[in-house]
């Protein structure tokens, strides 16, 4: 984008989630909005949106799906021509689904993400993390984001989907164009075309040669109410799993690594109390929740005094909700053994992240493996970390030395 960004005059009426300082660290802005007289900010940028920052409001919006629909869940509008063409109808079920279809859209993918199912990925993920560490351990320095975090979720999800791991670089490029560089309409179009064409080919191949114990084969042959599911559903689910399974999780891993590089006391705490890991992961997820999801307002409604119109975009800023002092004591502090942590890093309600068990496993294994092999490490230069923002917040360059 080469247009000059108009500076933000007033956060409450003109926030800009792509403004560089906001991208780097949105939390001070969230705080300012949350504690103002108007905790739901408004902007006309990017065709307009609302930004609730209080836990109670974000959760209410997530729960009220009849008012706040999932026909649009990205933080910016669709790119021109998105719904057109042969596969224009392909969306990303269940994340883009509303009841009643939402129910079966979600039900069909839940089993692959159950705790028992995801447990199968523990050893493979650990082996992958060790292999990545092997590449860097003698160098004394590495990019925790680009050399480590970035490679983990894409390979795990490729394994789950039964697609070639050698295509890691392509998958990564498509996902970044679809979600990270979300203001680049040409990039989004390119990514979508590639993703749909790729999965069309995957489906066609499995029609010829069905595979045993294969997610896509099983999905394509599933029946709902006596009929095989539509191809658009299969393509949409694959689209979602690739994009949602990758950018989000590597952002979470990257943020946790960024944190651990700066907090030797937390590394020590985990070394001395390994029982703390599950609670610690939840606390890190609370603190560094990567994802903001949007909703489209179904009908004119006054919500907490805000006059929302049908078609308005509302940004459910889960990262902001997770720092609300009304819900969390000392919200901006990582307390690894935090007792009360009803965080919404994975959302809340009927759309709560279906992949959360897998995400938790990946974050835990990534951190555990690194800390076992490289217990002491630090940021090379705190001012030289780059961040992605918009829909997903996480480091993209994070040099550490050890």
């Amino acid at each position, binding site marked *: 984008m080469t247009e000059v960004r108009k500076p933000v005059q007033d956060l409450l009426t003109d926030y800009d989630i792509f403004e560089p300082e906001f991208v780097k660290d949105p939390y001070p802005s969230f705080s300012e909005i949350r504690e103002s007289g108007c905790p739901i900010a408004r902007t006309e940028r990017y065709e307009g949106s609302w930004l609730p920052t209080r836990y109670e409001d974000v959760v209410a919006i997530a729960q009220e799906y009849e008012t706040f629909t999932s026909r649009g869940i990205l933080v910016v509008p669709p790119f021109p021509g998105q719904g057109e063409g042969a596969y224009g109808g392909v969306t990303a079920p269940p994340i883009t689904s509303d009841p009643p279809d939402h129910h079966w859209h979600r*039900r069909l993918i*839940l*089993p692959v*993400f*159950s*705790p*028992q*199912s995801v447990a199968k990925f523990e050893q493979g993920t650990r082996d992958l993390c060790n292999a990545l560490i092997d590449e860097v351990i003698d160098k004394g320095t590495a990019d925790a984001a680009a050399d480590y975090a970035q490679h983990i979720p894409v390979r795990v999800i490729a394994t789950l989907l039964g697609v070639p791991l050698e295509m890691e670089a392509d998958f990564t490029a498509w996902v970044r164009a679809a979600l990270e560089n979300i203001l680049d309409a040409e990039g989004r179009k390119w990514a979508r075309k590639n993703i749909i064409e790729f999965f069309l080919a995957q489906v066609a191949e499995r029609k010829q040669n069905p595979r045993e114990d294969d997610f896509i084969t099983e999905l394509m042959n599933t029946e709902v109410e006596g009929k095989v599911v539509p191809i658009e559903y299969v393509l949409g689910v694959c689209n979602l799993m690739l994009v949602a399974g990758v950018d989000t999780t590597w952002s979470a891993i990257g943020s946790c690594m960024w944190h651990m590089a700066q907090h030797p006391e937390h590394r020590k705490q985990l070394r001395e109390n390994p029982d703390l890991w*599950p*609670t610690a992961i*939840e606390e890190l997820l609370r603190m560094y929740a990567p994802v903001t999801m949007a909703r489209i307002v179904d009908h004119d409604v006054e919500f907490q005094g805000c006059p929302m119109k049908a078609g308005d975009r509302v940004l459910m800023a889960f990262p902001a909700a997770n720092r609300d002092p009304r819900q969390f004591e000392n919200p901006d502090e990582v307390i690894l053994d935090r*007792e*009360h*942590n*009803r*965080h*919404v890093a*994975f*959302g*809340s*309600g009927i759309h*709560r992240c*279906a992949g*959360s*068990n897998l995400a*938790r496993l990946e974050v835990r294994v990534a951190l555990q493996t690194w800390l076992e092999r490289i217990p002491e490490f630090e940021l090379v230069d705190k001012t030289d970390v780059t961040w992605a923002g918009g829909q997903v917040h996480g480091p993209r360059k994070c040099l550490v030395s050890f």
Partner: protein
Amino acid sequence: MCAIAAPEVFGSDEMGNATVLIDGDIPAELQAKTRRAESNCPERAIVITD
């Protein structure tokens, strides 16, 4: 999440929905974990009655 916080108390079915593994009262040594599971459930699905 509850299955991680208190695996003796909560299991999960093939859909990933939580199941309760213990019939009757929660034993004393599992109560702290059970309370943690309750206070962390994002859906407020766990209700503890004393």
